[in-house]
Each structure stands twice: as structure tokens, then as C-alpha cells.
């Protein structure tokens, strides 16, 4: 929402509302999103290629959880966010930028905060088990976009969504 103070913004059809995701490597964290009131996503297991962890932190309560997609709790949850949650937060900051992640989690990062893990460290977060199923099914739905066939019919509505270079 960089242009939000611009007086003409409200009257522009092409107002840019969401900055495009910044490129990042996807191997460790194939999926991260700010949705449903949570920072949530899926972290690949470091040891087993067939296993993923589902990690989330709620925006307004800062309750967090991490488990396998089969709901086995992560062993790293010892009173503080585990390394999966830290990795997730780091990748969220890479993808969305610190400002947007902080705003979503309703925190004001201080000047020394640069990474997602540092942002988590500054929270008064607490552990609260939640179901992995909701997040995992969103991930599967996300992946299913790659199965949607391409189109050769014009989509005129996409003129409202010009591709833009990531602001450097």
C-alpha cells in the first residue's frame, strides 16, 4: 500500500494494492501465506523428503503451533517457536517484506529487527495446539493451481493486473 497517501489513489482503476511476491527459493518452505488471520505455511522436513511440517502463528493472539501434516506435534516446540516456525517467518519476510508481515501480525518491529525469526523473538507468543488439516488443505489447494489447464481465451479482466517489476 505504498501509494496510499497519494490523493489520487482512490480514484485509480490501476491502483497497486498488493506488491507482487518477491522471488525466493522454495525448497525449504514451499508454501507461506498471510491468510485467515494467521501467518501459516508448510516447511519441508530436513531429514525425510516425504514429510512436511505445518506451522502457524495467529495474528491477534500470537498463539503458535507446529506439527507434521498427520498432526504429530513437532519435537522442537520447547516453550518457544521451533526452527520450522522461524524458517517459515524468515521466508514470509523474504516473500512479503518485513513491513507487511509485521502489520499482519500487528506488531511494530524495532529498528534492530530484520528477519522473520527476529520478529517472532520479539513477540509474547505462546504455544496452543491447532489442527494442521486446515493449513495443509489450503496448501494442497494451492498446489492444485498448477494442475489447472492453460487458456488461450482472452481474459480481459487481467488488464487490471499489470505485471510489474519488484520495487528495488
Amino acid at each position, binding site marked *: 500500500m505504498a501509494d496510499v497517501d497519494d490523493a489520487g489513489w482512490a480514484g485509480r482503476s490501476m491502483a497497486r494494492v498488493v506488491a507482487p511476491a518477491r*522471488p525466493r527459493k*522454495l525448497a525449504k518452505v514451499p508454501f507461506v501465506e498471510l491468510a485467515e488471520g494467521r501467518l501459516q505455511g508448510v516447511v519441508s522436513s530436513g531429514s525425510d523428503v516425504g514429510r512436511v511440517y505445518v506451522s502457524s502463528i495467529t495474528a491477534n493472539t500470537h498463539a503458535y503451533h507446529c506439527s507434521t501434516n498427520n498432526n504429530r506435534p513437532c519435537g522442537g516446540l520447547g516453550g518457544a517457536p521451533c526452527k520450522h516456525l522461524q524458517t517459515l517467518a524468515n521466508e514470509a519476510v523474504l516473500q512479503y517484506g518485513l513491513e507487511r508481515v509485521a502489520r499482519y501480525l500487528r506488531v511494530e518491529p524495532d529498528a534492530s529487527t530484520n528477519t522473520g525469526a527476529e520478529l517472532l523473538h520479539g513477540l509474547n507468543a505462546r504455544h496452543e495446539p491447532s489442527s494442521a488439516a486446515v493449513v495443509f488443505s489450503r496448501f494442497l489447494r494451492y498446489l492444485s493451481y498448477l494442475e*489447472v*489447464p492453460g487458456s488461450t*481465451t482472452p481474459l480481459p479482466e487481467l488488464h487490471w493486473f499489470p*505485471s510489474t*517489476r519488484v520495487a528495488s
Partner: protein
Amino acid sequence: MRGTQIAALTAGHPAGLTDALNLVEGLDAALTRGLARVGDEDAAALAGLAGALATTPLANLVAEAVDKIIAGSGAHEYVAALAGARSAVFGAVHDALLGQVDVAFERSRAPWAPVPPAAPDEVSPAAPGEMSPALAGARAWLSEVAVTGWRGVNHELVAGAGSAVEAALAVPELRRLAVLLDGLAAELRACVPVARMPQLPQRRWADLWSRGVLLAQETAAGDTALSVAERVSGRLLPLAVDVHEHDTAVQFQVHALLEPAGGGPPRLVRTAVGAAKVDSIVGPALWRLLPAQSVLLAALAQRRGVLVSDVPIRGADVYWQDDRARLDEPVDPFAAARVLLPGALAAAPHPVDRHPAGIAEPVLIEGYAVSAQEGGLTVELDGHRLAVAVDRLPSCGPLTPELVAASTACLGLLRWDAGQWLLQPVAVQATVKRKIVAVHTGDWACGVTDAKAAKADAKAGDAVLVLRERAGRLLRR
């Protein structure tokens, strides 16, 4: 493009433009506050809109809808009438603006040729009298949004779009609706709680909302069905590619000149190919989503013409069929535009698509000066200025603001937004290290050709490949 042509566009607005935009602004403010309880100010705005349409075929429909909505009804038929009224006003604005272009450039334009209504089973995926569940879901969500107002949008309301998008995405005929709803919902999701935003993009959201409502009516898709298209053969000379993307969709729209096989003046046409994607697929990786369009991609990357045979065309839209296309001789798009664009025959869009945001008229401009001001670029020719839409340079190509600033010739698309004409560069000739180079948005269609950018692309890894691997492992279970 000559300085006098810029002057013809920028000297003044078409008659009635300000009044039309004021009508829209009143409705947009009402949609921001929501239609659940219409206050005096919004009631006056809605009545004004109805009054403006009093001499049109929509008169009774809109007048009744406004009465019912002010009285507290949020029924879809009334909400839809408002979307129709807003679209009609913008349709008139579109026509006036495009008329301005056609006069300035002496561009001839074929009117849209309506076709007789198709049989009902070709128009809608549902049987007559029975609305498809996907349309019903989209309508319900769009109505709820209008009744709630942008200010009231919360996580629950945004989440409600999910099932509507999913249902629409499963029906190929409803791809437009699905892509639109997904794009709008993603913006709302990023802005929740909307009530805390200092300012809202209310023009934009109302644009998307009203187009969505139109596309959610049963008859929306019928007139563009392939079965009614004429067919053409000939040589296609690509001028430029315009790239559109949001989190889950990308579209490459190629503007081209078509020399019909049977002779006659060249036609100014477009062809679009697209793919579904996810938000983390960005930059040059976007091209890799189109493995089935290899002829088109090669034509862009190698700047070559294409021979097409017996492909469908509706208005200016050529429906791309890669197996009916083969590569032809190299073509310099600048030379093609210089020689053929002035006499090319343009075509009007489908009536539903008449909105200023859809205006993208190819132009060639040479011998200008570029100046940077207020964070943007402006081109100046014979003392007449035109702002450059630098925020429309795509992430997947080599064209940068720096190249535009160093350029002396530009192929661009004329755009209009918020009362202003803009030049969207799609190719430039610029002096780099004392050599003249031509840079086009489609140069990387078959892979990144710049060493530094290729390295960055390789470092980021192949997003499509990584996600497909994950999908392969996890979706099988």
C-alpha cells in the same frame, strides 16, 4: 506518434467525462460504506445514477433497483442492476476515449459485430432455467460484499470467496470470472481489516466488483464463444507483448498486425495465452508456464513473424492455436509499426469489455526527450508531454525504467487511468554503451538472454519444478 497527436489526447477531456466520473464516484462511495443502510448522501448518489440513465434501455431496471436498495433490499437482481448501470457509464467513457484515439491517429475501427443469440445449451453450462452452482456462489458472494461495503470486509467475508473461486475455476467457460474473483479476493485479504486503511482503492475494487457481477450472469459468455468466431489465415507480425499477472494467474497478450492471406489492409489484432500459477512463481519463470505455446514463444524471443492458418478471430482477438501456427521470416517490430500501423484496421471490443482500463492501443513514438520527475518518467515531443506508465514494465522481461529513460524510440500501448493518458512501453530502442539496442518485453520468452539476470534466475531455482515435485509427493496420498 507526432506531437500534435499527443496534444489531441491531452488538450482536453471528452465532453461529459467529468460528470460521468462523478456519477461513478458517488456509487463507489456507497459501495465503500455498504448498501445495507443507505444514508442520505449515498441515496442521492444512487438516485443521480438512475437519473443519468433515464433515457437509456436500463432506465426502469435501474430506477426500480435504486428504490429497492434505498428501502433496504440487498437482493442480487437489484445489486446487479447497479453493476450494470456503472458498467454502462464506463462503457460510454470508454467509447469517448477510444474515439479520441481514433481521431488523433486517424485509426479506422470496425464495430463489434453482434451475433444472433446461440442456442441456450451453448450459452450456459447449466440447463435452461437452472443456474450453475458456480454462478450462484459467485453472485451470493458479490452481493454480500456490496451489502457489507468494502469498509466492513473481514477475514470471514474474504474466506467466503474461496468456494466461489474454486467452483468457477472448475468450469472452463467461467475462467474469466474465477480469475477476477481470485484477484479481487487476494487484494481484500491483504487489506483486512479494511476499516483500518486510511484510504481505499474504491474505484478499482468497484471496477472489479461490477465486472464480476456482469460475468456472473448466465448470458455473459455467450457472445464470445468460439463457435461463432470468423476464421482467418495470414501472416502475423508481433509488435509487442503485454504481461498481466496476479497471484494465481498470468496472461501474455501479444499485439500484432495481421496481413490477411486474401489481401486487404493489415488488421490490428491481439492474441492471449495464459496459465494458472501461484504467488511464488514470478519473474522469468512465468514464461515456463507455457510449454504448449512454443511457436508463439519462439516468435517473440526471435522476433519473427508467424503464419497462421484458419484460426478463430472475434473482433481484434485471435484465438491462439499453436498447432495452426508456424514461424516465418524475422520481423523488426519497429519497422512493421512504422510502415503498417498507420493504415491498420482496428476493431472495437466486446460490449461487456468496454471500460477505460481495457484500452491498450499500440503506438510508435520516436525522437522524443525523456525527463524524470516526481519519481516518474515523461516523454516530450514538440513540446507536448505524455506520462510513462513505468509501473507496467513486466517482471519477466528485460525492459527497465533506465532503458526507457535512455531510449529514443518506443513501441507502447496507450493507456488511460484517473483522467490521464499514459504511455506503457513494450519495446524501446536505446543507446547503451554508445550502441543502439532494441529491447522488447518478450525477449526472454524462451529463456533469459542477459547473463546477470540469468544468474539471478538460476539462483532462485526453478519454482515451477520445486512445486511440481512437492505436488507429486503430497497430492498422491
